[in-house]
C-alpha cells in the first residue's frame, strides 16, 4: 500500500524559471511608515537610555522589578508602583553566534545576540542585546557583562544607545560551560515502557 496522502499536487518553480521569465510574476514594494507612540513606560526607558542608565518598574504586589519597564503588571494586572534605576551590568543568560543577518546575508564575523539578566532587576529579568569586544569562542553562559554606551552626543533615546555589552574582566563565568561530550546511547533499544 502506498499510503496516504495519495495523488499530492503542487507545481515546483525553479529559480532559473523565475530568472529567465518562464513564469509570470508581479512585484510590489510596500512604502508605508509608522510613528509608534512609545507609551509612558518605554518612553521613560528610552529617555534614560539617552541619559546613559537603565530604568525598571517595580510591582509592589508581586515584588518584581521589571525590565523592560511597564505601567501595568501582566501577572496581578494592577498598575506598577515605582521607577527603579538598575545597574548597567548583568549576566549572560543565553547567547548565540549568528552568522546570518536579519535579512539573511551571510556574516564572516558573527553577531553575538544574548539575553542579559540585568543586575538590580528581579532574578531572570533579561533584555535582548548584543555582545562585543569579546572573542566568540570566549563567550559563556553566566558571564558577567557591562554596557558599553555610545558617547552622550550620539545617543538618540534608543536601545542602540548601548553599543553592546562587554565582559567584565576578572569576573569568571558563574555557570559551567555547555557540555561538549555527546550523551552516549545505550547499546540496545529500550523495548519496555517501564524503563522510562
Amino acid at each position, binding site marked *: 500500500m502506498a499510503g496516504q496522502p495519495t495523488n499530492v499536487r503542487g507545481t*515546483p518553480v525553479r529559480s532559473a524559471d523565475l530568472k529567465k521569465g518562464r513564469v509570470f510574476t508581479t512585484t510590489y514594494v510596500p512604502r508605508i511608515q509608522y510613528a509608534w507612540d512609545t507609551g509612558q513606560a518605554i518612553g521613560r526607558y528610552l529617555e534614560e537610555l539617552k541619559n546613559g542608565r537603565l530604568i525598571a518598574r517595580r510591582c509592589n504586589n508581586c515584588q518584581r522589578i521589571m525590565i523592560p519597564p511597564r505601567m501595568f503588571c501582566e501577572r496581578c494586572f494592577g498598575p506598577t508602583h515605582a521607577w527603579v534605576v538598575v545597574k548597567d551590568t548583568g549576566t549572560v543568560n543565553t547567547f548565540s553566534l549568528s552568522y*546570518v543577518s536579519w535579512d*539573511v546575508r551571510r556574516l564572516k564575523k558573527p553577531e553575538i545576540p544574548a539575553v542579559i539578566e540585568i543586575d538590580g532587576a528581579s532574578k531572570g529579568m533579561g533584555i535582548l542585546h548584543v555582545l562585543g569586544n569579546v572573542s566568540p569562542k570566549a563567550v559563556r553562559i553566566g558571564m558577567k557583562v557591562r554596557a558599553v554606551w555610545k558617547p552622550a552626543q550620539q545617543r538618540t533615546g534608543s536601545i542602540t544607545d548601548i553599543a553592546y555589552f562587554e565582559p567584565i574582566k576578572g569576573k569568571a563565568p558563574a555557570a559551567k560551560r555547555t557540555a561538549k561530550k555527546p*550523551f552516549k546511547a545505550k547499546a540496545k533499544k529500550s523495548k519496555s515502557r517501564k524503563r*522510562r
Partner: protein
Amino acid sequence: MRRVAVVGAGMTKFIHRALETPKELSWLAAKAALDSAEMKLDQVDCVVEGTAPDAFDGVHMNGEYLSDGCGAWKKPYLRCYVGGGTGVYALAQGWFHIASGLFDTALVVCEEKMSTCLPHPQAAFLTIFDNITEQPLKPNLLWIFALEMNRYMSVHGYSVEDIAKVSVKNKRNALGHPSAQLGAELTVKDVLASEIMAWPVHRLMVSPTSDGAAAVLLASEEVAKRVTNKPVWVQGVGWCLDSAYWTNRDLYYPDYVEKAAWMAYRMAGIREPRKEINLAEPYDPFAYKELHHLEGLQLAPKGQAPRLLADGVFDRDGDLPTCPSGGLLGVGNPIAAAGMMKLCELFWQLRGEAGPRQVPGRPRRGVAQAWGDLMQVGTVVVMGVN
C-alpha cells in the same frame, strides 16, 4: 459538548516555490480532504482557515483573499491566527463550531506561501520582535531559536550532537512521505558538518521555508458515523500563551506547552500521558524544538528527551514514535499548513493508512502540537480511534 470526528484529510506537496497561488494551493488541499471523505462542498456547513503573517504574501486580510480557495463561498467563515501555532489551533477552532452544536460539518484549511517574500521570508519576521526595544537591534528569527536551544542544552548539559539526532530521524521518516520537501538519509556527522547559521543551530537543524496547504474535514458524531466506518475522534484540544516579555522567562522549558497539553489531556481523560499516548507529532521547526516540546507535552521527563531519543524510543518502531510524518524538518514548513500536516498524519496513522510511514502496533491515540508567536504559544490536539 458534542463529540467531533475527523472524517477526511488532504494536502498538497510541500515545495520551496509553488507555481500555484495561495488560493489554488488552498483549493487543492481542501478538495483533497473533501474527496477523501467522498463529500461535496454543499455538505460543508462552515469553514475555518488558518494562515500566518500577512507579511509573507504581502496581501492584507489574507483570510478574505483565500476564502474562495477554502470553499467558503456564502458560508460562515473564520480565519484564526496564533503564529506558528495556527495549524494545530485551527482544528480546535473547527471543533468549537461542531462541539457547540452550531454546525454538523466544518472544513478546516491551512495554507502558507512563503516564497513570495523577497529577498527571503526571514526578513518578514523582523516585525514580530518588540517594535521599540528589540527591532532596532536588527534581530533575526534564528536568534531566538539559537538562544533558546543554547539555554536548553546548557541547563541540561547536552551537546549539539545530541540534538542533531532529531534531524537525522525526521528527515529519514520524511522519505516515506509523498509530499515531503526534504526527506534524506543523513548521519549526525552530516548535520554537524552543515553550515552554522546561528550557533548552536546548524543549517540541517532548521526546517525549510515552504509553500503548501493541508486540510481536514470535521463532522459531528451523527454525520461521522454516516459517512465513514473509520472516524478519528478529536478527544481534546488545548492552547495557552505565555508573556510576550520573552527575555523575562527562562527559555529552557515551555510552561505554556505544558498548560496547553494538560488542558487537552484532561478533556481526553488522560492521566498518564506517557502510558496513554501511542504516537506524537510535536512541533519541530528546529531540531531541539521537538525535544523541548516532548518535555512540555509530558512525554519525556524534564531534560530527558535527548536520552530517550538516543535510546530509540522516538523512532518509528520505538515505544513512542514522534514525527513519523517526517515533521517540519523533513516534510517542510509552510507555517500554518505544517501544523495541519501533523493533524493529517495523526488521522492517517490512527486509521492505519500511512503506508510506508505507518507506525507498528495499531496506535489508538496520538497527540499533535504546534508552537509560535514570540516563543509563547502552545497549541495541542489529542485524537484517537474511540
